[in-house]
């Protein structure tokens, strides 16, 4: 029941209603009897028509009408065929007048028309009537698309129709929606008059601006405008935006327990005690087709074919980030020798985006690999020390070895044409002048400024408006508290972009980690703690990080972290992670050893918002290892611990801190110790 007031019925109404109910019940039971006995006489048909005019939702009666048509068709001469179908069209019309949201009625009409015996001339007139009465009825709009298709009415004519409807009343989201669909189509096939995207988009900006400026609180034009921005700035073709190792870098390999670093370099990395070397390719969008024929890796040390893996939490064959692992153990590497490795991407076709666009800008990455000390297996009984995250264990880095690392490794943006920047610029002026004091004005301005910075051809100008954008999001949090966490998430993304986009801004967050014994290699730790971050971003700038401190933020998820393949120590303590499934990205981090997830909200929530974003049997992306689970789980029920099992089973942690979470009771800790046989420290205590 929609929109019927809650009030007790008067006695006389009640008796009227009860009589109506009795009549309808009789009608329905007579109809069902006819249906069951396949009676298609005139009386029976009249009865079903009466039923449908009273209750158009009775789907079985529509089915019966179709059976009746089929039955009577076989007994009709060609003259009466048309009238047989016309009778159905008439019935649908009557039923729709009773309830024009009836799925069954609309479908019956489509069924009749698709038989090809009826004229479609009447349909547009009928539709115009319905669409006038309710311009937002999506059944009517769907039917309109069906009819215009059947009539082969041109996209251009339908585009004009949306213009007319919007002209009558701009507050018609359905029309804006249809406009976007038709326009996409026209632009895609470069129809006459639509081959110059910039001209078309400029007109559309003006069009939707009128709607938004007329009533900024009306949402009808909001999403259309965002779509226009996207159409202006987005690169259809996939391209590489970042990689590890970077172009021109030197990767140094150390055995276990070896000397500390000298200077800090973001370009060059030193890896210790590793037997595999990941190569990470980061694209601007999800792509498929990364394999040894589209990406060639050339080096004297390579003996086997490389198998590229999509880094996706789902089991799809497309991903934004791809990785391959070089098995160092299989290579006969000599000490102090430097090997060069060259990767060429996209010289042969095959890398394709999900929209079907091909990789546009073939590129090359060359780096060097150098073995400083031999790889040795860790001595039995000699464990790494407990990792501490105390401030006193960190020492500031005062400078980097090289300058301009981020800019030099930037694979971004081939050439953006001027009109994009001009179009965005003009929009900014309009919004700044006229609409900077309301919610949608501020939000649009923040998005436009972000787009403008992104389009800048010079790397160092891409932060030009960051402060202004951050300010806008801060204002929005206050202005529109209902959606404050949306703005906060956006704020976090911009802040991370600001921090990670240059050496200068990264430097204050880079620290040496001072291992108490000084026997281990000292790590460089990126410390992004206490920044009020509610989500992660700019991961493409952080592929080099081996030790990361994200503690004391407001993170609910760590989406994207799966790309940080070098990560070995991670502090996520004092955040808002609400479930084990939120830790899903960690499952791809083969080198992760130390994990602090203390003081989060694990076990505090009955509803898990990451349940379907983590691969699991529920999403058919994971086969559950029942045998292993049962051995480990013993008497515990699977439904209680499966998430933790799923996450930790594939990790090789030596140090885990999970205190301060509702889930971490005695049963759980004894379970987790069994799942993680490599564990040496749990909750800061040696096992």
């Amino acid at each position, binding site marked *: *029941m*929609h*929109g019927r*007031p*809650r*009030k007790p019925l008067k006695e006389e109404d009640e008796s009227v*209603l009860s009589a109506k109910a*009795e009549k309808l*019940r009789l009608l*329905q039971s007579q109809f069902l009897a006819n249906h*069951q006995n396949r009676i298609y006489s005139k009386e029976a048909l009249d009865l079903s028509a009466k039923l449908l005019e009273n*209750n158009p*939702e009775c*789907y*079985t009666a*529509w*089915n019966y009408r*179709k059976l009746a048509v089929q039955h009577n068709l076989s007994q009709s001469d060609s003259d009466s065929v048309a009238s047989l179908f016309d009778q159905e069209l008439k019935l649908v019309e009557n039923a729709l007048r009773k309830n024009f949201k009836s*799925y069954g009625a609309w*479908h019956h009409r489509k*069924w009749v028309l698709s038989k090809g015996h009826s004229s479609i001339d009447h349909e547009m007139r009928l539709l115009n009537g319905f669409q006038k009465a309710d311009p*937002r009825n*999506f059944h009517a709009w*769907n039917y309109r*698309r069906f009819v215009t298709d059947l009539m082969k009415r041109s996209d251009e004519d339908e585009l004009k129709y949306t213009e007319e409807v919007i002209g009558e009343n701009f*507050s018609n*989201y359905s029309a804006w*929606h249809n406009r976007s*669909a038709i326009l*996409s189509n026209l632009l895609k096939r470069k129809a006459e008059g639509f081959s110059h995207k910039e001209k078309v988009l400029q007109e559309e900006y003006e069009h939707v601006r009128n709607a938004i400026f007329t009533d900024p609180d009306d949402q*009808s034009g909001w*999403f259309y405008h*965002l*779509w226009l921005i996207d159409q202006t700035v987005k690169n259809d073709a996939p391209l590489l935006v970042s990689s590890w190792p970077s172009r021109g870098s030197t990767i140094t390999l150390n055995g276990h327990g070896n000397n500390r670093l000298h200077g800090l370099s973001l370009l060059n990395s030193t890896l210790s005690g590793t037997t595999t070397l990941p190569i990470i390719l980061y694209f601007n969008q999800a792509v498929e087709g990364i394999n040894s024929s589209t990406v060639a890796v050339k080096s004297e040390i390579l003996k086997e074919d490389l198998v590229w893996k999509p880094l996706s*939490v*789902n089991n*799809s064959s497309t991903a934004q980030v791809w990785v391959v692992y070089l098995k160092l153990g299989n290579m006969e590497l000599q000490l102090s020798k430097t090997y060069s490795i060259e990767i060429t991407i996209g010289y042969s076709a095959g890398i394709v985006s*999900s929209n079907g666009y091909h990789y546009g800008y073939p590129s090359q990455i060359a780096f060097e690999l150098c073995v400083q000390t031999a790889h040795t297996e860790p001595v039995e009984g000699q464990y790494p020390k407990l990792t501490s995250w105390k401030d006193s264990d960190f020492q500031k880095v005062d400078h980097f070895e090289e300058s301009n690392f981020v800019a030099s490794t930037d694979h971004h943006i081939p050439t953006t044409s001027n009109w994009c920047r001009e179009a965005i610029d003009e929009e900014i002026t309009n919004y700044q002048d006229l609409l900077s004091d309301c919610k949608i004005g501020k939000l649009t301005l923040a998005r436009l400024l972000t787009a403008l910075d992104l389009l800048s051809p010079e790397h160092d100008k891409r932060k030009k408006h960051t402060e202004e954008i951050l300010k806008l999001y801060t204002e929005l949090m206050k202005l529109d508290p*209902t*959606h404050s*966490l*949306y703005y906060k*998430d956006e704020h976090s993304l911009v802040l991370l972009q600001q921090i990670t986009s240059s050496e200068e801004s990264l430097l204050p967050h880079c620290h040496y980690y001072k291992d108490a014994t000084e026997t281990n290699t000292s790590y460089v730790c990126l410390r992004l703690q206490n920044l009020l971050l509610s989500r992660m971003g700019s991961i493409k700038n952080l592929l080099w990080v081996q030790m990361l401190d994200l503690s004391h933020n407001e993170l*609910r998820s760590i*989406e994207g972290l799966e790309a940080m393949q070098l990560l070995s120590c991670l502090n996520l303590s004092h955040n808002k992670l609400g479930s084990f499934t939120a830790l899903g990205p960690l499952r791809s981090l083969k080198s992760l050893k130390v994990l602090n997830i203390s003081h989060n909200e694990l076990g505090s929530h*009955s*509803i898990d*918002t*990451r*349940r*379907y974003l983590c*691969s699991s049997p*529920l*999403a*058919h992306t994971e086969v559950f290892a*029942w045998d292993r689970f*049962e051995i480990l789980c013993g008497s515990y029920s*699977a*439904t209680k611990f*499966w998430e933790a099992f799923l996450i930790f089973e594939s990790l090789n942690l030596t140090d885990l801190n999970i205190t301060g979470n509702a889930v971490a009771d005695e049963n759980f800790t004894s379970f987790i110790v069994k799942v993680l046989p490599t564990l040496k420290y749990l909750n800061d205590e040696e096992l």
Partner: protein
Amino acid sequence: MGELVADKHVRYILSVEKKKDSFESVVMEHLRMNGAYWGLTALDIMGKLDTVDTNEVVSWIMSCQHESGGFGGNVGHDPHILYTLSAVQVLALFNKLDVVDVDKVTNYIVSLQNEDGSFSGDIWGEVDTRFSYIAICCVSILHRLDRINVEKAVKYIISCKNMDGGFGCTPGGESHAGQIFCCVGALAITGSLDLIDKDLLGWWLCERQVKSGGLNGRPEKLPDVCYSWWVLSSLIMIDRVHWISKEKLIKFILDCQDTEKGGISDRPDDAVDVFHTYFGVAGLSLLEYPGLKPIDPAYALPVDVVDQIFFSK
């Protein structure tokens, strides 16, 4: 703000079942199977499924099954995918899936998949992404997802994606929160949520919350308690539910209760029905309202029922 009058809602749901002769019951007679799903799931969420006679329900459900394997909305009504899912869901609630011939039901669903990956609702060929969700959800519960062409099914759903990140009934159809739930749910169950632009869709969905705290189903429409399910479950599946105010929504749902006679309506002071009572209670469960069993956002069944299906050997 009032509290959830769960006892009254339980009594209301049980009483509707007895008023078979009321006008509403007669008008909705053809979808009694959906009604059973709404009412019984709401009872289970409120911890009162044991007030119902399991055998009676199960034998009635089975009397709605046809030779094709599909279920009708009531005895004597034609089979349709809509009622087939409800039947399977209710049997799952009672842990009685063993009474159906799983392959027979699966064959019915499989027969409705079209060449382009879409699904028809029944033999008469109406195509809609609602039916894609239903088919996928149904065969997944029956552990037979491999019997349909998942790749094509997913591709068809993606072809219904719009500029706002949402989904329509068929390609080109306008985004609608109910439709979005179906498409997001189907993508969740098939492990394909990476094909969604979560930030774009999340913004559209969170903007469904209006001043009163309620959610509407499309821009510039009135709020309605049923969207507490469609919008909320979608936001949860893509992990963007923190973008709305949970407190305001809880208040809106509670304001739609008939605190005297039980039941929940679409908007405050409107007439109650089982449909909105279920969506109100399910919405509160998704909002972690105390005293309610958690419900799974994709399968639309209590979490313990879903876990029982997928995590018992």
